[in-house]
C-alpha cells in the first residue's frame, strides 16, 4: 500500500477544511499539508449555504449582543467560553475573507452590507446576495491555489483513522478513481467533513452529507456530542427539500397558514408586525426551532395547506417587489421557478420544515481538539459547542472559518510539542486491517440486503421517531430499528465489482457512516428526557436545567448501541433564562 507522508492531513475540503489548510500554509510554508476529500473542493456542501455569515462589524452592534443571541438561541446549551472566542474572531475572519476577494454585498458607500436573520437582536449577517456559502467556498478554494504546500487529494474517501501510541497518526483512504487504498501518515489529523443530514428522507443536505467524518472519529473512540439536536429549517421547498434562505424572511417575507393568518403570533412570537417591516427577533425573525415547531402545531390543528407534496404553509414575498427579490434573493427566485414552477414575485410559495443542520458532532474543546490526541475537528462535523441546542442562522458559515483556523493552529502546536517517533510497522498493520475490511465488503457475495433498502428504512424510522417532536416510545422504536439495521448492514450486497469509480461501494461505506451517526442521534434523544431547543419531547415538555444542562456524549460500540455520558455545559456570564422572541411588544 502506498504511504503518503504528511505533517498534517485534513479530511474534508469544504469551508472548514480549506480554511484550515490555508491557515497551516500561511503559518509555516514548509509544512506538508494533505487536503483529502471525497469530492473536488468546490462540490462541498458549503456551496449550498445561501443566507450569510454572522459577525459584528456595524457600530450599532456589539459582541455582547452576538453573544446573547447565540447563547439564548442555543437554549443555553452552548459553551460560553467557546461562544466568546467565536464572536471575537468572527469579524476578523469575515474581513480576512473580504481581503481574499469574497464578493460581499455592499452599502452605497462601499462598506460591507449586513442583513437581518432569525433570532438576532440586530442586523449582523454578512451576505453575498443569496449565494453566500457558494462565494465563501469558491473564495477559499481559489485562495488555496496560491499555496504550493497544500497538496490536494481530490476524490479520496477516508475509511479509518490510524491510532497508535494513544494518538491519531493518520488514516487510510480509498482512491475512488483507482479503487486502491492509500495510507496517509500524519502527525496530526483535522476532520472537517460536514454533517449527516442524509440520515433523514427530507433534507436540504446534498447527497455527500453522510456523516463520514463523524463516523471516522466515532469509530476510533472520540465521542459524538449532542447528536440529538437536529435543526429543521422552517422554509424548504416541499417537493425536494431545496432550501429557501432565512434571508427571505430577513428581507421581509411572511409566513401564512391556509387562512392567510400569520400564525407565528399564536406561538409566542407576536404580536404581528407590519408586513414588509420585519422586526428583529419577532414573528418571522424568530429562531428556526420555534418556527419549525409552530408548523407542526399548525399541522395538528389542520391549518396547513394541502399540496400534492404534503402539508405546507405559505411563504409570501410578493410585497418585496421584483427589483428587491432580483437583487437580494435571485437564487431563491430561480429555485422556485425552476423546481416548483412558481414565481415568488407573483405568488406565495408553499414551504415546509426540512432537516438542515446537525448541531451535534465530534466532541471538541474550545481549541477544536478532540479527546483523542492528534485529532482535531471543525465545521458541521464538530461540536465545540457554540450552537447549543439550536444554531442561530448564519453562525455556521462563520464557525467554519473561526474553528477551521483554530483547528489548524492547535494541530500545528500539537505537532510541534515533541511527539514520539511513529512506529511505522504498527501503523502499516492497522492500514492493512482497514484495507482488508474494505476488501471484504467489496468481495461480499450478494446477500439479502440492498443499500437502498436499508437506507430507506433508516430514513423512515428517523423521520418517524426523531423528527421535530419526539416521544419516548417513538424513540425507543427508532433505536431498536437502527440497531437492527446495523446488524443487517453486515449482509449488504455490493453488485459493482469494478475497482474504478465504484459508487456502489462508496454508497455502502456512506450508509455505514449514516447508520452509526443515526444511532447516536436516536439514543441521545431517547435518553434526553427534557425539551430544549431543537430537541422537543411530547412526554417531557419542559427544559430541565437541574439535571440536563449538560452535553451528551455518545461512545461507539461495534455491536451494541452507544454508551451515553454527560458533560457539564460551560457557563460564564449568561445564566439560563427564558427565550423571548416577542420583541415587538417592547
Amino acid at each position, binding site marked *: 500500500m502506498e504511504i503518503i507522508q504528511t505533517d498534517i492531513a485534513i479530511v474534508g475540503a469544504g469551508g472548514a477544511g480549506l480554511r484550515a489548510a490555508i491557515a497551516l500554509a500561511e503559518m509555516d510554508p514548509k509544512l506538508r499539508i494533505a487536503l483529502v476529500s471525497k*469530492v*473536488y473542493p*468546490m*462540490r*462541498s*456542501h458549503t*456551496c*449550498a449555504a445561501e443566507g450569510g455569515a454572522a459577525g459584528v*462589524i456595524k457600530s450599532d452592534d456589539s459582541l455582547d449582543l452576538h453573544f446573547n443571541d447565540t447563547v439564548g438561541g442555543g437554549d443555553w446549551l452552548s459553551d460560553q467560553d467557546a461562544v466568546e472566542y467565536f464572536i471575537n474572531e468572527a469579524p476578523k475572519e469575515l*474581513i*480576512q475573507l*473580504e*481581503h*481574499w*476577494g469574497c*464578493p*460581499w*454585498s*455592499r*452599502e*452605497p*458607500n*462601499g*462598506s*460591507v452590507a449586513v442583513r437581518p436573520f432569525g433570532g438576532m437582536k440586530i442586523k449582523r449577517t454578512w451576505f453575498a446576495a443569496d*449565494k453566500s456559502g*457558494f*462565494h465563501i467556498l*469558491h473564495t477559499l478554494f*481559489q*485562495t488555496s*491555489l*496560491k499555496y504550493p504546500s497544500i497538496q490536494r487529494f*481530490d476524490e479520496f474517501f477516508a475509511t479509518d483513522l490510524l491510532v497508535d501510541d494513544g494518538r491519531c497518526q493518520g488514516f487510510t483512504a480509498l482512491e475512488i*478513481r483507482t479503487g486502491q487504498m492509500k495510507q496517509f501518515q500524519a502527525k496530526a489529523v483535522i476532520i472537517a467533513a460536514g454533517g449527516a443530514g442524509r440520515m433523514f428522507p427530507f433534507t436540504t443536505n*446534498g*447527497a*455527500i452529507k453522510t456523516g463520514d467524518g463523524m463516523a471516522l472519529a466515532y469509530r476510533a473512540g472520540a465521542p459524538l456530542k449532542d447528536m440529538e439536536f437536529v435543526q429543521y429549517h422552517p422554509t424548504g421547498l416541499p*417537493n*425536494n427539500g*431545496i*432550501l429557501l434562505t432565512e434571508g427571505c424572511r430577513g428581507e421581509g417575507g411572511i409566513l401564512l397558514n391556509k387562512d392567510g393568518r400569520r400564525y407565528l403570533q399564536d406561538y409566542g412570537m407576536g404580536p404581528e408586525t407590519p408586513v414588509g417591516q420585519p422586526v428583529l427577533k419577532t414573528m418571522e425573525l424568530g429562531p428556526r426551532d420555534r418556527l419549525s415547531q409552530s408548523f407542526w402545531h399548525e399541522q395538528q390543528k389542520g391549518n396547513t395547506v394541502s399540496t*400534492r407534496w404534503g402539508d405546507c404553509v405559505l411563504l409570501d414575498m410578493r410585497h418585496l417587489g421584483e427589483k428587491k427579490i432580483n437583487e437580494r434573493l435571485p*437564487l431563491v427566485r430561480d*429555485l422556485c421557478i*425552476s*423546481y416548483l*414552477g412558481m414565481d415568488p414575485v407573483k405568488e406565495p410559495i408553499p414551504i415546509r420544515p426540512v432537516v438542515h443542520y446537525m448541531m451535534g458532532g465530534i466532541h471538541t474543546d474550545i481549541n477544536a481538539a478532540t479527546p483523542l490526541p492528534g485529532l482535531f475537528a471543525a465545521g458541521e462535523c464538530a461540536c465545540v459547542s457554540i450552537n447549543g441546542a439550536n444554531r442561530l442562522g448564519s453562525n455556521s458559515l462563520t464557525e467554519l472559518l473561526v474553528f477551521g483556523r483554530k483547528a489548524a493552529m492547535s494541530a500545528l502546536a500539537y505537532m510541534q510539542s515533541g511527539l514520539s517517533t511513529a512506529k511505522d510497522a504498527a501503523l502499516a498493520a492497522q492500514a492493512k486491517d482497514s484495507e482488508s475490511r474494505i476488501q471484504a465488503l467489496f468481495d461480499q457475495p450478494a446477500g439479502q440486503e*440492498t*443499500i*437502498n433498502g436499508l437506507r430507506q428504512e433508516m430514513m423512515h424510522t428517523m423521520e418517524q421517531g426523531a423528527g421535530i417532536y419526539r416521544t419516548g416510545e417513538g424513540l425507543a422504536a427508532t433505536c431498536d430499528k437502527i440497531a437492527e439495521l446495523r446488524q443487517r448492514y453486515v449482509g449488504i450486497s455490493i*453488485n*459493482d465489482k*469494478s475497482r*474504478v*469509480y*465504484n*459508487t*456502489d461501494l462508496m*454508497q455502502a461505506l456512506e450508509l455505514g457512516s449514516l447508520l452509526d451517526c443515526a444511532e447516536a442521534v436516536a439514543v441521545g434523544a431517547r435518553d434526553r428526557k427534557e425539551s430544549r431547543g431543537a430537541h422537543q419531547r411530547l412526554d417531557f415538555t419542559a427544559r430541565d436545567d437541574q439535571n440536563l444542562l449538560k452535553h451528551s456524549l455518545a461512545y461507539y460500540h461495534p455491536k451494541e448501541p452507544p454508551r451515553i455520558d454527560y458533560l457539564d455545559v460551560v457557563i460564564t456570564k449568561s445564566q439560563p433564562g427564558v427565550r423571548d422572541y416577542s420583541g415587538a411588544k417592547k
Partner: protein
Amino acid sequence: MSERQIELEVLRYDPEKDSAPRFQTYSVPCLNEWVVLDALNYVKENLDTTLSYRWSCHMAVCGSCGMMINGEPKLACKAFIHEYSDKIRVEPLAHFPIERDLVTVIEDFIGKLSSVKPYLIPKDDKPISAGEFKQTPAELIKFKQYTLCINCMLCYAACPQYGLVPEFVGPAAIALAHRYNQDSRDGGRDARQEVVASNEGVWECSFVGACSEVCPKHVDPAGALQQVKVASTIDWYKEHLMPWVKK
C-alpha cells in the same frame, strides 16, 4: 401527479470490462416534475446499482452533475423531464476522457483553473485590523457576474475549440481570471496575462459563443474572453506604438 415511462439511454463504460463505451437502456417511471438526475437516481436505487455518476446538491450550485443530455451539455439536476420526449440519451460531458460511465476525468480543467492565478492579488495590502477594502456596488457589479461560475465545465463540453485544441485554457478559467482582473481590489492582471493572453489562452478562442449559450449560471464566459482580447489588444498597441506610455 402524472407519470411517464422514459427510455433512458445511458452511455456505460467500465474500463475493466469494456474496450469502448456502449449504450444501455433503462425504462424509468418518471414524474413529470423530475429532473434527469432523479431518473438516474431511480436507476441507481432500483434497477442497476453499478451505474456511476457524480452528483450532490440537486440545486444547480455544486456543479457535479454536468453531462450530455440529448447531445447538449446540461446539469442533470436542471434538465427537466417535461422538456424532453419519451427517449432521453445521457452521455458523459464531451471533450473529457471517460473514467467510468458518466464520470469524466477533469484534472485538465482543474490544472487550467489553477494556472490563471484565480485569487486576489491585492493592489494595496493592508492588515485585517484596518478593516475591509471599500468597494461600491457599482465596482462590485463590474465583475459580479463572473464570480457565479460553479465550475461545472459545461462550457468546455460545448466549446469546439477545446475539443480540437486540448491545450486551450478555456472559457471558465479565463472568465475567472477576468473576474479578478475586473475587481477594484486586485492588482494582479499583469501576473495573469502570461497565461491568459498566450496563444493557448484567449487567442485560441474564435468566439463560437457556445460556452455562454450552455452556461447554467449565465456567467457569459464568451463575453469575458472577448473583453480580455480587447484589453490585450490595447496593451499590444500601447506597447508597440506608444512605448513611452506606461501601461
